[in-house]
């Protein structure tokens, strides 16, 4: 429903905005010369068109429009796909899908193989003439097998009858298929089908596994036919499958052929046994000939005209089923671009752009579902709040050795088995967080974890990088001493460090925060250094003659003067950290947005992948906008000094 409305709105918006844009060009007074930058200003209506176009392409290629307007089309196409799947095997026997009869192509291939082996025999230096004669004799015998199969007169009457029977079955199906009341479903079958129907859900359904709360893989396309048309195809597909199976069991073997091939096999077997260890070449070649003979045996080679009637019946059925599809083929053609629904034995699935490009509606529903803290992903919510007692935070922040360095001893239990608490023991309780106070809300979840890692890495980078960078910008020793260290690790792509750092510091937060610290440190040092060394000398001179001390100059002149560079550095560092973090979370970890995407990839959960991409984009944008706001607030003089 939502998709339908959205699609219509998009169409209206695009057409309306284009008309408005054309109208504007006619009436506007701006100098209409090419190259005037004024002409690029404004144009919100084109933004609407651009956005709508993207949305429309997304809706269309994800087949969401098909789902919105024809929700049952996928199910029907699934049934058609079942028929096609059953037909495919039969069709391949005839020049319908292929260029030639299957029999013809097998004969061609095996003749070629025989020729190749003959050549090999004649050119082999390891064979004596006698061996060569024997092997060429076998080849001639193998060749003789083919006419035994293709001769119509030799064909067994039983085989002929069976082919006739199958052909009649196909013909019957064709005529039944066109009848209105086909398939002749009994009440019992009907109730059974309706029961299955009520259980299966609709196209692209999301199921949540009860208990664990994880999102299951979606059932892409429901199998049980929902419509009468679909039911027709479903039943026909089942019948065709039986015919198909019967046909493939059928072998065109007559007594002469059976005798000949048995004789050949036995002769070769005996010959190979008679060969000594040194005559391996002859043995191998003989084996090759047997293989070819066997292939001829198992291939269904028929006389040229034997299957003509069957072929006609199949083509007729194919035409009938296409006819019966009605408008469905048009929906398939137009609303299922770049692919279609395919059936493979036990399931129907989307194949093409609809598979990897999730439907906006599905994605939205899934996102809403995943946002629920009870669902989340892998039992961890995306972003939620947990009530945590202040004590555990205090215990985490305060180091335990505070208690150790206090004078006195920890309490020892008495003979009565009582422990008398003393001051030192009480302090230990505080620093280890072994007390109860009040609870405060603390955010947690995948998004929060990713955010916190970036934030901590960045903060450490700033705390260490900025003073060091300023120092390096002002002091020759510092610049010379620290420069090699930084230049040694900075040019290495941060991800190249990731495996090392993660294996040393662990897959949890420590490793990732350290990696991000490394990324932000070099950026912060370089930008702070550039800021410090870019201070105008006259400003420093002015500050000197105004009586400022070294410390004051650093604090009141050089630092504020470097702020634009430092803040720009932070903005760059945030971007770099964000990119590195996601990749680091791919490598290892148990939480984080990158982790979610990596797991979703393993289970082909395309919607989840797109959701994570979207979340990352949004968070990246949020970081950048926040920093831009901070920059505009704190350094309004930037570029105006």
């Amino acid at each position, binding site marked *: 429903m939502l998709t339908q409305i959205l699609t219509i709105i998009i169409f209206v918006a695009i057409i309306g905005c284009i008309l408005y844009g054309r109208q504007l060009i006619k009436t506007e007074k701006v100098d209409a010369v090419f190259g005037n930058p004024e002409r690029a200003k404004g144009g919100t209506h084109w933004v609407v068109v651009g956005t709508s176009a993207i949305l429309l392409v997304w809706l269309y290629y994800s087949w969401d429009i098909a789902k919105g307007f024809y929700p049952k089309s996928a199910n029907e196409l699934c049934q058609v796909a079942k028929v096609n799947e059953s037909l495919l095997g039969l069709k391949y026997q005839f020049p319908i899908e292929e260029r030639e009869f299957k029999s013809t192509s097998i004969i061609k291939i095996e003749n070629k193989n025989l020729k190749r082996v003959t050549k090999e025999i004649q050119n082999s230096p390891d064979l004596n003439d006698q061996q060569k004669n024997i092997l060429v004799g076998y080849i001639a015998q193998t060749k003789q097998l083919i006419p035994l199969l293709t001769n119509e007169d030799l064909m067994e009457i039983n085989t002929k009858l069976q082919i006739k029977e199958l052909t009649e079955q196909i013909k019957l199906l064709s005529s039944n298929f066109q009848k209105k009341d086909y398939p002749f479903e009994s009440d019992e079958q009907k109730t059974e089908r309706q029961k299955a129907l009520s259980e299966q859900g609709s196209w692209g359904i999301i199921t949540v596994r009860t208990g664990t709360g994880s999102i299951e893989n979606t059932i892409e396309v429901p199998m049980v036919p929902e419509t009468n048309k679909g039911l027709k195809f479903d039943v026909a597909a089942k019948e065709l499958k039986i015919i198909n199976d019967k046909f493939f069991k059928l072998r065109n073997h007559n007594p002469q052929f059976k005798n000949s091939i048995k004789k050949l096999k036995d002769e070769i077997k005996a010959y190979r046994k008679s060969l000594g260890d040194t005559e391996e070449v002859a043995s191998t070649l003989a084996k090759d000939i047997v293989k070819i003979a066997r292939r001829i045996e198992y291939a269904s080679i028929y006389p040229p005209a034997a299957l003509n009637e069957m072929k006609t019946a199949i083509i007729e059925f194919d035409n009938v089923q296409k006819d019966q599809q009605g408008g469905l083929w048009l929906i398939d053609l137009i609303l299922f671009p770049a692919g279609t629904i395919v059936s493979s034995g036990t399931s129907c699935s989307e194949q093409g752009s609809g598979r990897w490009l999730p439907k906006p509606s599905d994605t939205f529903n899934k996102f809403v579902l995943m946002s629920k803290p009870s669902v989340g992903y892998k039992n961890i919510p995306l972003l939620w709040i947990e009530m945590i007692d202040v004590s555990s935070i205090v215990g985490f922040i305060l180091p335990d050795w505070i208690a150790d360095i206090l004078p006195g001893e920890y309490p020892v239990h008495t003979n009565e088995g009582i422990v008398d608490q003393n001051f030192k023991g009480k302090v230990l309780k505080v620093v280890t967080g072994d007390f109860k106070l009040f609870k405060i809300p603390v955010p947690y979840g995948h998004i929060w974890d990713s955010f916190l890692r970036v934030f901590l890495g960045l903060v450490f980078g700033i705390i260490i990088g900025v003073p060091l960078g300023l120092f390096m910008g002002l002091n020759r020793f510092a610049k010379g001493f620290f420069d090699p260290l930084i230049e040694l690790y900075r040019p290495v792509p941060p991800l190249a460090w990731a495996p090392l750092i993660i294996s040393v510091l662990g897959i949890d937060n420590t490793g990732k925060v350290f990696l991000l610290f490394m990324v932000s440190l070099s950026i912060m040092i370089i930008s702070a250094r550039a800021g410090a060394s870019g201070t105008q000398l006259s400003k420093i001179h002015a500050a000197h003659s105004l009586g400022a001390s070294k410390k004051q100059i650093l604090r*009141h002149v050089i630092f504020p003067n470097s702020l634009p560079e430092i803040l720009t550095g932070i903005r760059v560092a945030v971007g770099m950290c964000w990119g590195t973090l996601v990749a680091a979370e791919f490598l290892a970890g148990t939480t984080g947005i990158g982790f979610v995407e990596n797991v979703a990839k393993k289970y082909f959960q395309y919607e989840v992948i797109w959701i994570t991409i979207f979340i990352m984009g949004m968070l990246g944008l949020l970081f950048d906008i926040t920093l831009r706001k901070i920059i505009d607030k704190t350094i309004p003089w930037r570029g105006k000094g």
Partner: protein
Amino acid sequence: MSDLVSLNLNMIFKSPKGETVHALKDVSFTLKKGELLTVLGPSGCGKTTLLNIAAGFLRPTSGKLTLNEKEIDGPGVERGMVFQQGALFEWLTVAENVNFGLRMKQENHEVTAKKVEEWLDIVGLKGFGNTPTYQLSGGMQQRVALARCLINDPDLILMDEPLGALDALTREKMQSLVLKIWKETGKTIILITHSVEEALLLGERLYVMAPRPGRIHKEYKLPFAEMGLKEDLREIKKNKEFSSKREEILSMIWNMEEEIMGKEN
């Protein structure tokens, strides 16, 4: 005695290539308290070097520069400086810029705020206290720089082409302001300029310096600064004596430039 005394000041720079540049050679002069000295000369004559030594940013190779009989050794509050481009701190407002020196001395906030108001009034920036400096025009920025320097009550004010980057009209207004401040505060001022007119208009005394080696070429005692306090500056420029002096100095500098070009070729 609060004189500025220069005794055989020499300044020799060595370039990384090993060439030596004699920026100042045996420069000796005495500047009495309350005098306004303008220094003029072609580029490379060492006038900025002289100023930097006076400010304490550079140490002379030999010779001595004393203020109030104390040798100048590093920058100090008693010598204020005004730069060509203002060198204002653009992250501070006008008032904060003016207040900078007092804030560094950590003086009482209320007292300094009052002083800042007074000085903004003197330089004609009343009501601009909370304006960010990057929103000011060039002339206004120089006014802020003047106030920022004067609020520290220095004995000596050093001005390095303070009006060089201003347009002609603003420049004239600022020249009047400099004269006014000089008169009202009675400060010793050294003003470096490359405009002959400005040097003549503002200088009670005028040194024309010559390059290679940098030295004082000629010294003038001028009446125009005193006249400028009463008369319109434009009227003085029409004065015959003024024009003849201007022509004399211009041709002098012209010759120096010719000489340099000759040496180079």
